[in-house]
């Protein structure tokens, strides 16, 4: 066990955990930030997507020891009041069905639009291909990203 000081959603937080503990479980079990979801544990489904210094990463494969000097952002931190253009577009298109994968989808979409403010269909396909939606809301996800691109 070791003490780690982390910067999460602009706040400085401390945890006492094993160095190999993935950020996914640090967030969920130790910091009560449960918006980041467990799906596969092997970076294949995207449900656990967070931002490390603005880049989308799979938190199930990011050990806490590798996150100490980084700015970490989770779904809880992308806007103060749930009004990020991507969140608003998600609501406008009424994207979610079960909703479980959507935090990860949104985190991937926010990172995409930051890098590429007006992505083509192919850009969206490539950026979002690592996020599985078992309910099959892909066409709405794509439409919402296009709406967000227009309003961002």
């Amino acid at each position, binding site marked *: 066990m070791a003490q780690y000081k982390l910067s999460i959603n602009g706040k400085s937080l401390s945890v006492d*955990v094993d160095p190999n503990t993935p950020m996914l479980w640090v967030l969920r079990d130790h910091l009560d930030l449960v918006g980041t979801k467990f799906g596969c544990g092997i970076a294949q*489904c995207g449900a656990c997507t967070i931002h490390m210094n603005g880049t989308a990463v799979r938190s199930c494969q990011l050990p806490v020891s590798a996150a100490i000097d980084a700015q970490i952002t989770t779904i809880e931190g992308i806007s103060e009041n749930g009004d990020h253009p991507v969140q608003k577009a*998600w609501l406008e298109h009424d994207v979610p069905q*079960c909703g479980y994968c959507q935090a990860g989808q949104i985190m991937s979409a926010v990172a995409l639009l930051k890098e590429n403010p007006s992505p083509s269909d192919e850009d969206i396909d490539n950026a979002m291909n*690592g996020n599985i939606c078992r309910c099959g809301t892909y066409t709405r996800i794509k439409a919402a990203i296009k709406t967000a691109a227009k309003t961002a």
Partner: protein
Amino acid sequence: MTLVDKKLNRRSFLKVSTLAGGGMMLSFSWLAGCKPTPEEVLTMPKEWFELNSYIKIGENGAVTLFNPNPEFGSNVKTSLPMILADELDVEWKNVFVEQADFYPERFDRQFTGGSQGIRSGWMPLRTAGATARQLIVNAAAQTWNVPAEEISTNAGFVEHQTSGKRASYGEMASLAGTLEAPDPETVKLKDISDFKIIGNSKKNVDGTKIVTGKPMFGIDHKVEGMKYAAIVQPPAFGMQLKSFDKSSVTSMPGIQDAFEVKIFKDDYGRNFFDTTTFPTIIAIVGNSTWEVMQAKKNLKAEWEEAPDSTFPMAGRGGQNMDIKVPGGLENSETHKVKMAEYISKPGNVLRKDGDPEGAFKKAAKVLERTYTAPFLAHNTMEPMNCFADVKGDKAVIYGPTQAPELIRQTIAASLGIPQENIQINLARMGGGFGRRAYSHHMTEAALISQKIQAPVKMVYTREDDMSAGVYRPTYSATYRAALDDNNNLLALHVKAGGIPESPIHANRFPAGAIDNYLAEGWQIESNITIGAFRAPRSNFIAGAEQSFLDELAEEMGKDPIEFRLELLKRAETNPVGENNDYDPKRYAGVLELVREKSNWSNVPAGISRGVSAYFCHNSYVAEVVDITIKDKQPVVENVYAAVDCGIVVNPDAAANMGEGAIVDGIGNAFYGEMAFENGAPTKRNFDTYRMIRHKEAPKKIEVHFVQNNEAPTGLGEPLFPPVFAALGNSLYKATGKRLYEQPFQPQLLEMENLKM
């Protein structure tokens, strides 16, 4: 209606309220999870007045509506309250929606599955809304001293035109809450043409919570002093625990204990939804999810082959039967060989019309094709998990389940405490697809909590989840058609089975449309457990049947839609047999609508197009799939769906559900497959189990609903089964090759020269 009567009866209601005040139901939380709908912020009233199990109104006119059914993504939490709100005659913006916990004294049929939520809730919820509205009217009549018949309602207000009196529901709620509920049988329901909310799309009431990452799933739950648990199950079907070394994990950091969990007591008569692959597992308990997952990898356990066994099951009629579980380690290759043997073996006759044997004897030509599909894993995005807190003879369970009523019986028997002492709170589910109708994960969590005497959250890894069984079965279907010299259809024969169940619905189309018809079923026993998977049986047989009809239409030189319409015309005007369980006119209606919406005869350049139609869960669906070939691989461009599910309560959400079912079908048709080697699932996570991804989804999906005033029928499942054949038929147009075996993708990769 008798059930409604029971629940709305004022006296049974008061009894419940007393219970709620004195016992464990006190923790039933009225306000947990309240959220303004849509985005307008409602002011909380000072006091709520309960009008019935589903409805309470505040003095300020705010309304709380309870969604009785578990929500797994099919929109019941929004759509069911819409029905209540319309009959109650309030404005949607003044409505809070709350998820009801499992509370059988207050709610009927708290079950999500079989696409029956809206269909079976339709009349009870309309009646509940109308009854509460009548209570408000009666309160106004008493207050104003005028006849109730002279009072009208509109958008949360009561009015008496003659006297000019007007008041909000909030002003009448206090008195209304004390009045005797009117007889539900006599309460007047709205005319369908007067609906204001039903039929007008409303956003998901949990949308904001979802996009901001608020805790709402079972896996998100946490209480003070809670422990974490992981499970270890045998590595293969047909195996059981021999022994394990507890000390291999208990010295690891954060690990408290490891022990055997036996799910059922020996003499327990299981119910139909008690499917449990491994009745004995190992639980590891510790201080965090990561620590117990690490311990899982370290645990030293020995496994052995399980012998043939039997367990008692309570049949649906109350009679007990013994269910046999064969021993042995099964293989997919052996499964295929065994299933192929049935093509020439006789099956059990399920339906016979006319003289099919005679017709086949005199046929000029016989078309025979066999279709197969593998086992499928549900793979809900949220793995199985559950929170449980068992203290003495009381238990609180919070987690994902489609069927709380059934699992409560099981948990009670396994814990040895009375059912009424078990409180099941319903978490939003991260997907269900049938899998969570089998909720043994709740029993496991409860037993772990009972053993450690502390609250616990148990979480499956993805590998646990994917290899725990309850799969969609593997199936095979052989279709034969007898044709005369002029290519007239003389007879149709279907023989279909699977491991371990047959997919046949013997009285569905094309039964009823063909003079000489024979349907046979068979099954092969197995120790691989199966369960309901989105549109059980239909999800395979529709693909086989509709692929065969496509090939048959081609053989007969007919347009595939025209051919189906001719058969349906026959079933409508001069049906064969008496037990046909579909309405040929509504069936034809969706084919005609999809023909129009897809502009069927004008296929755009470069597009290959296939059609399919199916009836299940009381609804009719026809679908057209358009594909192109790019880089020698198919790309799904457009999907057009025409749906007759009666009145559509929440149209945009219904379209979303339909789009999802289509994506799900395309994914499973191309890639879905679970296989076995020596009893072990060959795929345990998403690196090997291929799921449809963003890139592979159709570019465009249109879902069109037939406009009518029929009572609502199923929606979550019916759009799924037809996709398989619509896709297969379009692939045939593109490649010149018929595909008989799912999944399609491995065969497409082998095709070097696609036709286009």
